[in-house]
């Protein structure tokens, strides 16, 4: 049989079809084009904070987990990038509640400026400022995602330090309004300044901050009740940690339960005529003994600058210095 042009044409056509099939369906998987590799779409997220090694904890000098398995947040224990990604996935809104009455009004501007800069920067935050002088609230330039709501309240003598009205107001306001506007809520003292980022590592169901004075060994003994000093964690002296009332929070439902319970406790003592800042704190501690926080913040998150400790690597929130003429 002679090889004619038609033979050649047939072979070319066959080769062409074979080539087309090869191109569209490569025989080995490694020749597949790179496809988007993650079903969740977020695979570019790396643990940037040094690769977690199970036999090498980052903080060996402090307790990072409570006996009921609640994490204690210290600098070096968390990666804010990972936590931010998780927070963003859930589309959450956090609120801050703070009270500024009588002479505490002077702290509003400093508080708002620093909180706007450092508190959950980049996420939506609603600030609820309860004050008896709304006209004195100067306009502070806020980030576009943050909002400020100024709510007028009445004041009485020695009101600021009395917790009864604060808890009552908080409790009823959550029920009336806040539960519809925020998912998480934090209560902060107005006479503080934020000096470093306080981010989404604080977001959990019930969050409390360990008091600064718990960090030095002699203060640790005070908590055990062996030395005189600041009050023991609870009236009976059987506390886990001593928590500060200057910064606490959690999910809006948990903060509601907390404020309602503390208000109830206050009402009992009102008959006896007690009402002071220290009392506010001891009520909070009593509640948190029975309803243990799901996350604890180290004293970095409310650091009394008169103390010093090598364990505090970052001071995030500090009370504003007041001179002796204040009281």
């Amino acid at each position, binding site marked *: 049989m002679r090889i004619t042009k038609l033979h050649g044409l047939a072979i070319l056509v066959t080769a062409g079809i074979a080539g087309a099939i090869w191109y569209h369906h490569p025989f080995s998987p490694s020749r597949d084009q790179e496809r988007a590799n993650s079903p969740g779409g977020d695979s570019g997220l790396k643990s940037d904070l040094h690769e977690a090694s*199970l036999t090498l904890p980052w903080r060996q000098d402090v307790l990072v987990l409570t006996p009921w398995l609640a994490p204690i947040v210290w600098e070096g224990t968390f990666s804010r990038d990972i936590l931010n990604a998780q927070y963003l996935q859930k589309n959450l809104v956090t609120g801050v509640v703070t009270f500024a009455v009588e002479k505490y009004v002077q702290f509003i501007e400093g508080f708002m400026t620093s909180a706007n800069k450092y508190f959950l920067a980049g996420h939506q935050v609603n600030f609820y400022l309860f004050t008896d002088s709304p006209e004195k609230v100067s306009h502070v330039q806020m980030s576009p995602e943050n909002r400020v709501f100024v709510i007028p309240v009445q004041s009485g003598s020695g009101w600021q330090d009395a917790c009864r009205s604060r808890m009552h107001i908080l409790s009823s306001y959550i029920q009336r309004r806040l539960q519809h506007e925020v998912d998480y809520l934090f209560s902060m003292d107005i006479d503080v300044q934020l000096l470093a980022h306080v981010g989404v590592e604080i977001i959990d169901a019930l969050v409390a901050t360990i008091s600064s004075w718990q960090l030095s060994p002699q203060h640790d003994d005070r908590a055990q009740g062996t030395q005189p000093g600041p009050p023991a964690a609870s009236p009976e002296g059987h506390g886990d940690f001593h928590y500060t009332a200057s910064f606490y929070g959690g999910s809006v439902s948990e903060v509601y339960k907390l404020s309602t319970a503390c208000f109830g406790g206050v009402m009992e003592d009102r008959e006896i005529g007690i009402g002071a800042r220290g009392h506010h704190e001891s009520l909070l501690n009593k509640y948190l003994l029975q309803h243990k926080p799901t996350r604890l913040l180290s004293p970095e998150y409310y650091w009394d600058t008169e103390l010093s400790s090598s364990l505090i690597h970052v001071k995030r929130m500090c009370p504003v210095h007041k001179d002796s003429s204040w009281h």
Partner: protein
Amino acid sequence: MISRKLLLTSLFCLGVVAALAIWARAGSGKVHYLPYYLPCPEIFSMKLQYTEEKLIQLFPQLFYQQPRVLVPKRQDVLTVTPWLAPIVWEGTFDPEILDSAYRPLNLTIGVTAFAIGKYTRFVRRFLESAEQHFMRGYQVNYYIFTDSPASVPSLQLQPGRSLATVPMAKFSSWQEISMRRMEAISRHVAQVSGREVQYLFCLDVDMVFHNPWGPETLGDMVAAIHPGYFTVPREQFPYERRSSSAAFIPEGEGDFYYGGAVFGGLVNKVYEFTKSCHMTILADKANGIMAAWQEESHLNRHFLTHKPSKLLSPEYIWDDRKPKPPEIRLIRFSTVDKDYKEVRN
């Protein structure tokens, strides 16, 4: 003019090329699936009814030693992940405190275990050791998925604990059986266990409990760290490294290597998780590829993007063939010695 010989030769060439193409296409993976294997629509549209999750438990007054901020419990191991999930090691928790909070909640905890083919021989020891060590004092429902319900021993269980066998087909290969567990668990949760339990653990049956396993393991989504990979860097994790698989994890990514033998959590979270793993397994099947470690690879892929809320240390998923390092103070759950070739046949 086209001769008959020419026509026949061309057709023959075309036929050979077509055959080669089909063979190459189909032969690129070890297991081939017929094109009409579609996802089961009825699983994916099932709405799960579940009870409200309780977040904060009331801790009754209890006398115990005060925790000290300056005294870390375990200095030799990591006890909190970078996303602030606790890692449960012996010494990090107080079982009394946790028991005092969880017991009053009247929880029922479910356990799934798959005993297919020769694996039914492991059920007795699994159940006997679970009765002794697993969630003592709590209500427990055991769900044994098996192809031969008759071979499941009827054991005397403690009060408040029950055993149910779930019929399950036996598939052709052990890998297939392993991967089908995700589908079976999600289907079972939607139909049965979602209504009966609040927390569910999915465990391998060829293992035995040696020490207490209690409420410290309860959480929203719980994974366990594989005993073979907790001291090595992520480059050495046996993740699926082929980009064509839905379980692909590229180099430079990954937190830990989790074991497929233990996972659990709130029942609705376990449902979502197993459903999602089942979907990625199906995606791989459609592409004719099987992940390096079957559903364990898919589990690891899923836990990279949806990080677990609590991790269990290798104490909870140990391999007895390994020597015990000092970091492991207590072995709670570990493999039974067996001849893998013989039992998987």
